[in-house]
């Protein structure tokens, strides 16, 4: 293997991929990147931590073909020390050793044979499903807030989001046991069979990071599903995600249920009120009380020994009064990511989940469990 490559291009590729490399782990190979030549104009870089794999390409002048695994961190360190805009020469020598040279600078780096690297699924680009980039990004952003990083076994909440795709729709849902979010997007696809997979949180985070890099691009993301893995092709970068093999709670009945108390609220005003009131809350519970009357919503909280706060926002509501407790953090999470000016909050009674959604559709639903009402001790 021998090729020359621009240092900047190489470093950019290494930086995208080496995010996933595991520096200290049971398998030394995972701290490495697989470098593979492709034709005479390109090289590919692969990195994986077995849950998540990334493949990125970079332009190069390939003199002879081949592949090798090199330690990711040292590679990045070497490239960073070389001057910007330089042309780096790489050459595979005996015993998996690689010579990296530029001008008079020269490094010999010990690598590992490419066969030791965990294989990536091979597939044909034509078989991938195109999904509008903006839809995917929107979905992941809105669902991610309810997906826990670690499995919450006692709550029946897996550390991943359920993704279902059929010919007309694409749905995603996630839950951490206390809240649940559901989103639906229209699609037009030729699909032989429905897709139903659970994507791990880690992949969702990385996927969002990659999608955020060019938020305005209109190129579709190409998606493919295999037995144990999924692939997302975003531009020239491919992300491979292990699929979770776990139980996902049946959330459909809850999603289908409609509540009778429907309140329309201005998002920013509501957000500011909750934020202010939440100052007087304690612990992870962040307990605040919402008091709903005709066209007004009163929010208050008390914190023992600290003080209390109350705020009132004007809403559009014409139903029975209701008093209900929520976690302020849960409300803020969703208000922060929505961009509508008006939002709808649906409730039915003190002991049923509240729902936050946009006013014109039920395509995105955010459920949160209420907190049982109690008086904090007088101070």
């Amino acid at each position, binding site marked *: 293997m021998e090729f020359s490559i621009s240092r900047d291009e190489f470093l950019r590729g290494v930086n995208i991929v080496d995010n996933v490399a595991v520096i200290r782990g049971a398998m030394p190979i995972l701290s490495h990147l697989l470098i593979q030549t492709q034709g005479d104009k390109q090289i590919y870089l692969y990195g994986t931590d077995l849950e998540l794999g990334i493949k990125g390409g970079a332009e190069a002048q390939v003199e002879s073909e081949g592949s090798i695994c090199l330690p990711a961190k040292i590679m990045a360190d070497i490239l960073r020390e070389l001057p910007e805009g330089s042309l780096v020469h790489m050459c595979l020598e005996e015993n998996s050793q690689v010579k990296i040279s530029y001008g008079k600078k020269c490094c010999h780096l010990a690598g590992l044979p490419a066969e030791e690297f965990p294989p990536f699924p091979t597939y044909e680009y034509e078989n991938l499903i195109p999904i509008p980039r903006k839809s995917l990004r929107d979905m992941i952003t809105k669902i991610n807030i309810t997906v826990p990083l670690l*499995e919450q076994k006692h709550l029946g909440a897996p550390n991943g989001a359920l993704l279902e795709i059929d010919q007309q729709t694409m749905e995603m849902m996630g839950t951490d046991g206390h809240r649940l979010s559901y989103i639906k997007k229209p699609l037009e696809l030729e699909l032989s069979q429905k897709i139903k997979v659970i994507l791990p949180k880690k992949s969702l985070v990385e996927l969002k990071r990659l999608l955020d890099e060019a938020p305005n691009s209109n190129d579709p993301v190409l998606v493919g599903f295999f037995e*144990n893995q999924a692939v997302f092709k975003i531009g020239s970068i491919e992300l491979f995600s292990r699929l*979770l093999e776990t139980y996902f709670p049946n959330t459909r009945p809850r999603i289908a249920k409609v509540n009778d108390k429907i309140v329309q609220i201005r998002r920013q005003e509501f957000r500011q009120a909750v934020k202010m009131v939440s100052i007087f809350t304690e612990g992870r519970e962040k307990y605040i009380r919402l008091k709903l009357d005709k066209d007004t919503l009163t929010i208050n909280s008390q914190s023992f020994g600290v003080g209390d706060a109350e705020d009132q926002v004007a809403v559009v509501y014409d139903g029975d009064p209701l008093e209900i407790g929520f976690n302020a953090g849960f409300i803020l999470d969703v208000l922060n990511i929505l961009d509508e000016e008006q939002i709808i909050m649906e409730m039915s009674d003190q002991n049923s989940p509240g729902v936050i959604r946009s006013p014109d559709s039920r395509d995105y639903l955010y459920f949160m469990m209420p907190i049982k009402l109690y008086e904090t001790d007088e101070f």
Partner: protein
Amino acid sequence: MPFGQIVGQERAIRFLQASLLKGTVSHAYLFTGPDGVGKRLTAFGLAKAVNCLERNGDFCGQCDSCRRIEQRTHPDLFLIEPEAEGARLKIEQVRELQAAVGYRPYLARRAVCIIDQAERMTEAAANSMLKTLEEPPAAMLIVMVTASLERILPTIRSRCQVVRFSPLPKDDLERLIGEQLSIPADKVRLLVHLSGGSLGRARRIDLASLQDKRERIFGLLDSLSSEACVEVLFSQAKKLADEEDVDSLQQFLDLWLYWYYDLWKYQLTGDERGLINTDRMKEIIRQSQILSSHQIEENIRLIEETSAALQRNVNKQLALETMMLRLGGGQREKDSQVPGEG
């Protein structure tokens, strides 16, 4: 290296192969048996066999899957073993496995987790493992390997299928030692006896120190048969007790025992075959003529008693002194033609 090449464990392997062929592989196995008889090797064999791309009910050792398992680079192979000699298996190691449990296998049909020296799990680790065993992930096979079944929590034992491994037959072991360890042919028999049917133990025996011990024994035998004074024996006993640990003393006593076994056998049969210390034939013939069979039996019993006493944490020096005194006593009585008291 297919199953057929794992020596001396036909029964265990026949059982595993039958399960593989019938598709009734259990979710968890507990391999138990003496140290170094092929449990771990078989565990890796099983890991290869459930995932082998070429063979059904066996493994080829050549395909990508087998190769990766052999090199420990298979993404679906989890090996939990003590991080250092004598270390325990920590709960963190079990948690690492559990984090991976939720995923579908990376490329295997069935992910395999091998827990070596499972008896070294801390209580916390074992209890945490219990949870994984209770709700076994569909695409995972857990193989625990242990040399002491009684140290495994009963709750774990009852959730695994126990597969017993036996000590290797002498002939197999003799062949294996001859093939795998480069040692002189006349020492092979000695190693076979010392290792108690375990290739692993045979491997760990240091021939040089073994030779050293034998020389010492023959030296001691000389002092016993000559009119050496008690002080010499005592100083030898003290030296041994100070320098050697219990395991090494045990080996020392075993070597000594084999000497009397040889004398006994030769005295009874007059046959050189089956003897262990064949390099000392002359001495065997001479001694077997001097000592009475009763004395030899008595000496064997003495050494066995001392050996058992050492396992119960007695004072090493005292035990050795007593033994030598009585061994020497018997010998001197014989020399002076005074009937032994038994």
